[in-house]
């Protein structure tokens, strides 16, 4: 059933109408029965009363009237030939019966009347002056009694008043003399009825037409219109006559006011029906019962109306209302229940449809099973993925259909991991292989959940997703990653090789140029060689920049955290720059705030690189004026925050370029590169180095006024007394002359080293590769130290070192070995020291660094 409020309301209204109709009919039925009882009761009382007077008048007629002297007087009157005789007889009759008349009058007798056989009035005891008028026309009772010669009893209207007539023919020995009539008023009947049933109040209504047609002139004033109906009259409402009943009580007047105009009353009275109607008065129910009264000609000419309290009618009405209330309420409750059930059903249906729509449209396969694994639902996506129609698989064991196949060796249901989990009310999430209808398989990601009803597993719902594509993508990704990693490794190796390959000849160029410059030269030659030296240094800077940037890009650049002295680091960084500044006529000043700690923990090499880079830039872009480096310590909660500020009076940087100035390969414009040279990597390296060291860098610049670069560094301060292992004071003590073994495969570098060392007074033996070196070392034992190239043919430097150290482990002793290599990549130094070398000098060889290293290893030994 579909939930339809209007249908339910309609059904309710229909049932309620039927209910009301039934109960109403039932009530009406009972009420009619009750009314019928009322009417029967009234009619019985009425008939009894009328009959009572019939008996009484019959008694009077037989015992008083139909007596010889009375009949004789009447007969004398009839037979008298003269008026005097008639008068005497009439007088006698009057005299004889007056006592009887008086008594009857006291018993509500209205008329006592003798008529002749021809209908002529002979003597009216109630109106003796009137006589001789013919009565057959207007008094059917008299006509009937005298023509049929039998007593006629009944109600009849008259010339003046109406009454209940009792007419007896007077027959003496077969001679019809006339008739006697006794007539009683309604009051008499009413009193008699009251004797029988005193709880009622009675009224007597006369049909207007029946009264008026017979009424003598001017007598209408004796009548008044009935309250209940305009076509009815009441006799003597003003109580002019002594035998009129008392006026209606206030109750009856009030009831009449209610009943007047009621269609039932009007129509019923028009039709002359017996009926009972009710009215409410003073919280009580009253019944008015209408009993039609027929005249002697059997025409309905009047009504007796009985008013009585009708508590039973009220009870019936209350019962009706009570049952109506109870049944309506019950019906309403049932209706509401049906309403709720249907609405609930409808909501359930709607929810089901929504769920169906979701399961139908979801891209993942979805199926539901009962607790024994029989499929109860399969969504379209599952149909598509597996190739089964839902109708083919419903009711079948899902596992057997698509999860028991060659790939899992036709795994039985009981061992199915999904089934095992969900039957224990545990969730299953995993990857499985499902079989397709076409025999193929499908790699799927499965999520299965038990359906619980009161903690009991009643089934399960499983969602699965085709992950074939994802698996392929994952494989491809892994492959690509591996390839990328290989490529990266190759790049790193390439860079390392390039670095080595470039540095080796650069070592020769720079070193030998230095050697040449140290000798005697023509002024022109010196100038040329100086330029060669400068160019070589510049080239070295460029190569270092590129290598640094490569390392930064590859994430290989690391910063150290070692103790160093700020003053010294800055001095050594600025020294060469001061020379260049002086050459351009620029003033280079360094101002270090007095409260700045000198002994710090950090990476002095990278700090030098940043400062060199920024000051180098300043010198490059400043044509006149000065360059100022200011260092100060900023207050910071955790550790020392140093601020380095390099300002110049150079060209400045346009505002729109300030944001991109730290980007790689970015110079203010391309012309700068042409004018000032440089790779455009300097500032990018600066920013990366500062960031690596936990600081920030920024720039302010005004075009034509100058630029200010600021960077900050977090540096922990350390105690002044801590040793300064690196970059410390290179106090080269006069050592030697030493006997050194130079292991170098490159002839240029070999010559350079031999020249440099020889100039310092040392004796140098040479080996061209590792094997030769090892042979020399094992043969001779008078070497003070070995300067060992690392990358060599036949046997590399590390191999030689390991062999030497191995030998020394057995024969004791320690021969200092200094790596002298173009392997200047990060980590190289540590790698070499780990193999047993004592120190490290990067190519191209700086004379200072070389002798410092020598000094260190010799002094340590």
């Amino acid at each position, binding site marked *: 059933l579909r939930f339809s409020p209007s249908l339910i309301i309609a059904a309710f209204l229909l049932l309620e109408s039927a209910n009301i109709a039934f109960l109403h009919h039932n009530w009406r039925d009972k009420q009619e029965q009750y009314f019928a009882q009322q009417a029967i009761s009234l009619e019985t009382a009425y008939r009894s009363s009328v009959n009572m007077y019939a008996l009484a008048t019959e008694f009077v007629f037989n015992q008083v009237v139909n007596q010889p002297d009375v009949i004789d007087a009447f007969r004398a009157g009839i037979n008298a030939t003269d008026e005097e005789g008639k008068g005497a007889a*009439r007088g006698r009759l*009057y*005299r004889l019966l007056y006592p009887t008349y008086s008594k009857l009058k006291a018993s509500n007798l209205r008329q006592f009347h003798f008529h002749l056989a021809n209908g002529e009035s002979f003597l009216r005891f109630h109106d*003796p002056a009137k006589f*001789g008028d013919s009565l057959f026309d207007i008094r059917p009772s008299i006509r009937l009694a005298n023509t049929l010669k039998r007593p006629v009893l009944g109600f009849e209207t008259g010339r003046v008043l109406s009454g209940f007539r009792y007419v007896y023919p007077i027959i003496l020995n077969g001679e019809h003399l006339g008739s006697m009539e006794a007539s009683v008023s309604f009051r008499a009947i009413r009193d008699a009825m009251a004797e029988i049933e005193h709880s009622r109040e009675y009224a007597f209504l006369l049909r207007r037409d029946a009264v008026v047609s017979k009424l003598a002139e001017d007598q209408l004033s004796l009548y008044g219109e009935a309250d209940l109906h305009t076509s009815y009259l009441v006799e003597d409402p003003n109580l002019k006559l002594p035998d009129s009943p008392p006026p209606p009580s206030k109750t009856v007047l009030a009831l009449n006011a209610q009943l007047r105009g009621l269609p039932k009353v009007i129509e019923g009275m028009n039709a002359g029906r017996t009926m009972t109607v009710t009215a409410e008065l003073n919280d009580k129910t009253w019944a008015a019962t209408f009993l039609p009264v027929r005249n002697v000609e059997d025409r309905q000419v009047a009504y007796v109306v009985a008013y009585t309290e009708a508590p039973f009618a009220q009870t019936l009405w209350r019962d009706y209302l009570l049952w109506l209330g109870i049944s309506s309420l019950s019906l309403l409750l049932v209706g509401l229940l049906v309403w709720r059930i249907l609405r609930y059903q409808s909501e359930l249906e709607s929810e089901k449809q929504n769920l169906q729509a979701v399961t139908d449209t979801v891209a993942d396969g979805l199926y539901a099973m009962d607790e024994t694994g029989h499929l109860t639902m399969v969504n379209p996506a599952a149909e598509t993925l597996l190739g089964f129609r839902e109708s083919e698989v419903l009711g079948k064991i899902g596992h057997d259909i698509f999860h028991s196949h060659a790939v899992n060796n036709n795994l039985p249901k009981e061992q199915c991991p999904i089934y095992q989990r969900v039957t224990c009310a545990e969730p299953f999430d995993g990857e499985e292989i499902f079989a397709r209808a076409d025999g193929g398989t499908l790699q799927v990601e499965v999520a299965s959940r038990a359906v619980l009803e009161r903690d009991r597993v009643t089934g399960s719902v499983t969602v699965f997703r085709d992950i074939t594509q994802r698996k392929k993508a994952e494989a491809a990704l892994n492959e690509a990653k591996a390839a990328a990693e290989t490529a990266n490794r190759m790049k790193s190796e390439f860079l390392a090789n390039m670095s080595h390959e470039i540095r080796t000849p650069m070592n020769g160029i720079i070193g030998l140029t230095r050697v040449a410059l140290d000798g005697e030269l023509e002024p022109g030659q010196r100038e040329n060689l100086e330029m060669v030296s400068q160019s070589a240094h510049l080239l070295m800077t460029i190569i270092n920049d590129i290598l640094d940037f490569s390392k930064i890009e590859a994430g290989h650049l690391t910063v150290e955290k070692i103790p160093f002295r700020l003053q010294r680091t800055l001095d050594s960084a600025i020294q060469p720059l001061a020379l260049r500044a002086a050459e351009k006529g620029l003033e280079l000043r360094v101002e270090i705030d007095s409260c700045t700690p000198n002994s710090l923990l950090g990476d002095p090499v990278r700090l030098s690189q940043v400062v060199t880079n920024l000051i180098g830039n300043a010198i490059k872009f400043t044509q006149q004026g000065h360059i100022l480096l200011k260092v100060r310590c900023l207050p910071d909660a955790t550790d020392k925050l140093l601020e380095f500020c390099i300002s110049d009076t150079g060209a400045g940087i346009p505002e729109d370029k300030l944001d991109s100035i730290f980007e790689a390969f970015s110079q203010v414009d391309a012309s700068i590169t042409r004018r000032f040279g440089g790779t455009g990597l300097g500032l990018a390296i600066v920013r990366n180095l500062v960031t690596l060291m936990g600081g920030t860098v920024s720039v302010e610049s005004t075009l034509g006024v100058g630029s200010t670069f600021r960077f900050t560094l977090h540096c922990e301060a350390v105690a002044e007394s801590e040793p300064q292992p690196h970059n410390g004071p290179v106090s080269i003590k006069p050592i030697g002359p030493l006997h050194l073994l130079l292991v170098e495969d490159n002839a240029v570098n070999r010559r350079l080293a031999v020249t440099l060392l020889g100039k310092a007074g040392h004796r140098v033996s040479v080996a061209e590769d590792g094997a030769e070196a090892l042979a020399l070392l094992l043969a001779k034992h008078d070497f003070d130290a070995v300067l060992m190239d690392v990358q060599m043919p036949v046997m590399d430097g590390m191999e030689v070192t390991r062999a030497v150290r191995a030998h020394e482990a057995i024969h004791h002793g320690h021969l200092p070995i200094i790596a002298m290599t173009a392997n200047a990549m990060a980590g190289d130094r540590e790698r070499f020291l780990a193999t047993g070398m004592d120190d490290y000098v990067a190519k191209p060889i700086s004379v200072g660094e070389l002798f410092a290293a020598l000094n260190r290893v010799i002094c340590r030994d």
Partner: protein
Amino acid sequence: MLLALWTTFPFAACAAPFAFAPLPMEQPETVVKQVKPMLAHLEKSLGNGFRIEFSTDYGDILKKFSEGKVDLAYLGPLPYVALKEKYPQAVPVVHFNEKSGKSTYTCAIVVAGEAMPLSKLKGAKIALTQPLSTCGYLSTDGLLRQSGLNLEQMKYRYLDKHDEVALAVTRGEFDAGGLKTAIGKKYSHMGLSVVAETQPLPGFALIANARTMKPEAIEAIRKSLTALQPLKNTEDAEVTRTWGDNIKYGAVSAKDSDYDVVRRLRARADIPEDGNF
């Protein structure tokens, strides 16, 4: 126009209204209903208004009349005769006709059965109507005296109504009864006989107070009422249609001598209020 109206009604309504005394002991509503139309009619021809002066009994009326507080009274023959004796300014204006058209009537003594000499009634039981009724004690006593008898020799009782007197006699409850001749005859069909009858007597009349009313006004009333012939003229009948039954059948001019017959019947001035058995 206003002036014309003024001159048409010489007795302008500005004069004080005349005081009219109806019969005593009548319900004011009945009086108003029966008398007012006639007074309204008189007002038109008189140009003077009337007010109704109610009284509790005849004595009250006669007293007010003597004191000039009543200008016009509706009185029967006996009260008039009594009034006239004490107050000569009482002037009869009109007698009202009966339904028959007669302005006079007679009283009778009736018996059940055949007529017989009055002398036979000695010591009989006599039914009377009312003490002040002309056909009551007065005429019965007067008629008996003509036969050498008088009521005080008899047993008499007041039955109030003429019809009741007739029926009581018919029933034999009384030997004779005094009543209006017309009513007695109404029961002749029951064997009632008239044994004595008076000369014609004046009926009810309007009596004017000559001390308080000008002769012209009295004459105007007389003319106005005698001019109406309701029993002959339908237009006049329409005028009196709503008047009381005792006054609607027209009137004739009255004079004091009309009452001489009453004075003759009247042997004593004080008529007993109650019967003597």
